[in-house]
């Protein structure tokens, strides 16, 4: 029983980690807390939902669409809106992205109504048994996809010129500029990339959880928790943070009630902020 609960937590945790990684990337490079993050996830989930519902496209095959659409949306938002206040006090970016999230969430609510929707292909409930454990195929596959997306992002940042330029900008903006890196371009690309990865995570979420226009708020909170625990802007930390959240939620749902998750999240967040403000590995940005 306990082993099964832990396994469920790990499988969900992988998806949660993918949800948070774009948030962490954007914070690390642009130094803004992106409140639209939850809406990016919601849009990714709806893209998968509608492609499946209207065109019968397999949820896993809709992932490239989520990636591409969110990339474009992120790029445009950063280039034409957010970039205008990138040098302003941080409260301005908080407010601006908050306004944008209000607009997107409520447009979605008008367009798609508040119903809870499910992405349920034929294989949705299928599972296999391993010793005493039940493993649902979808959960396992989405977790693997989530890990692959994070690994892809990690390698992109480490191995490609563009990725290294992004990392350089996050470490030292002026230094990067001296090397011929143009910060405004890097900001737009980073925001687009963060949004696109978040879109993938949204697609993955839709295969395990209900999809509805106001789903963003909870996942914004989850993502924040994950990146604080793992270290703000520290990409690999998101994996640890995601697993901790997944296991925490799985344990509390099974043993003390789902509502307790939120109380535990706050208590843990509070403890981490007191003792390890740079995340449990101490590798995050603290300012």
């Amino acid at each position: 029983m306990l082993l099964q609960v832990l396994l469920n937590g790990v499988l969900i945790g992988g998806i949660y980690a993918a949800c948070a990684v774009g948030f962490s990337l954007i914070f690390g490079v642009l130094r803004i807390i992106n409140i639209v993050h939850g809406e990016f996830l919601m849009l990714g989930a709806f893209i998968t939902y509608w492609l499946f519902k209207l065109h019968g496209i397999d949820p896993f095959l809709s992932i490239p669409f989520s990636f591409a659409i969110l990339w474009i949306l992120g790029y445009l938002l950063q280039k034409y809106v957010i970039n205008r206040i990138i040098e302003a006090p941080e409260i301005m970016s908080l407010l601006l992205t908050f306004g944008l999230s209000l607009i997107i969430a409520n447009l979605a609510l008008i367009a798609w109504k508040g119903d809870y929707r499910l992405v349920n292909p034929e294989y949705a409930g299928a599972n296999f048994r391993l010793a005493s454990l039940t493993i649902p195929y979808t959960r396992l596959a989405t977790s693997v996809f989530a890990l692959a997306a994070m690994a892809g992002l990690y390698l992109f940042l480490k191995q490609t010129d563009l990725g290294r330029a992004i990392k350089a900008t996050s470490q030292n903006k002026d230094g990067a500029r001296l090397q011929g890196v143009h910060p405004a371009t890097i900001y737009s690309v980073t925001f687009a990339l963060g949004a696109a990865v978040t879109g993938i995570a949204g697609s993955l979420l839709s295969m395990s959880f209900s999809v509805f226009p106001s789903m963003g708020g909870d996942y914004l909170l989850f993502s924040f928790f994950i990146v604080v625990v793992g270290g703000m802007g520290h990409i690999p930390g998101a994996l640890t943070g995601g697993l901790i959240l997944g296991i925490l939620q799985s344990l509390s749902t099974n043993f003390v009630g789902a509502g307790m998750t939120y109380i535990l999240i706050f208590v843990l967040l509070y403890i981490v902020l007191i003792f390890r403000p740079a995340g449990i590995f101490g590798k995050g940005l603290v300012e």
Partner: protein
Amino acid sequence: MKISSAKLWIALVLIALAAVAPLGISGYWLRLFTFIFMWIGLAGSLNLLTGYTGYLDFGHVAFFGIGAYTTGVLMVKLGMPFFPAMLISAVLAGFLAVVVGIPTMRLRGAYFAIAMLAFAEAMKQVVLEFDGITGGGNGLSLPIYTNYQFFYYAMLGTVLLIIGTTYWFENSKFGKGLMAIREAELAAEVTGINTLYCKLIAFGISAFFAGIIGGIYAYWMTFLYPGDTFSVLITMRMIIMAFLGGAGTLLGPIIGAAFLATIEEILWAEFKYTYLIIVGFIVVFVVLILPRGLVGLFRQRILAR
């Protein structure tokens, strides 16, 4: 900013009008004005924190909810009269703000903003989980009191206290210290200001007032439900009202709250989601074009003449 005698007279006339108004209005209008005062108070409470320290609070509704529920529980379970119950709730709200502020206010405002979102969500769950005391998801019924003029004056009185406190922030050494922190925290620290201490005091005062308003609201509505009392929408409206009017100014939250609360009264029932989209655009517009709010715009006009 010192207030000129002409402005002081205008303010006194307005206060006198507000004080005698219940003699001439009743029913719907009395309720509407009580609501407008409530929103001015809530926006003013947020402004004491956000306007003067630069820390945006995405969970400020927590203190409103703590005030409301503590007042409710003290009155229902312990049979306490309203005033002491409300005061205890407000003190509790202020105290919890300081406790939550200690780790979060050492960090940048971005951490604080979302940590508070987590705090508000946690507080709502506490109310839901401890349903033996709070009524949980079934809600909590308070003793019914139908003297609506009482609630009008209670909200008005609280608003005046908040305005007085804001005036003190604007003109005291403490307030100047806060504004120094908002503009350049490191520089403020170097000049010998204990920045964490100042921010915590401002946060505590701000939460105390939100708690008072929550307490009055609880007794006025006579029924509390966790989903409504801790609604994220309440926080959103406080933020929007404060910033539309102009955060960090004395008049900003008053103007912003009175303006938006009136518009909401007209539009809310029929166009709830359209309304929120429009509000979203207003926020984007304020940030990009009008970062100092309506009050800032008005001041610029005067200076330009």
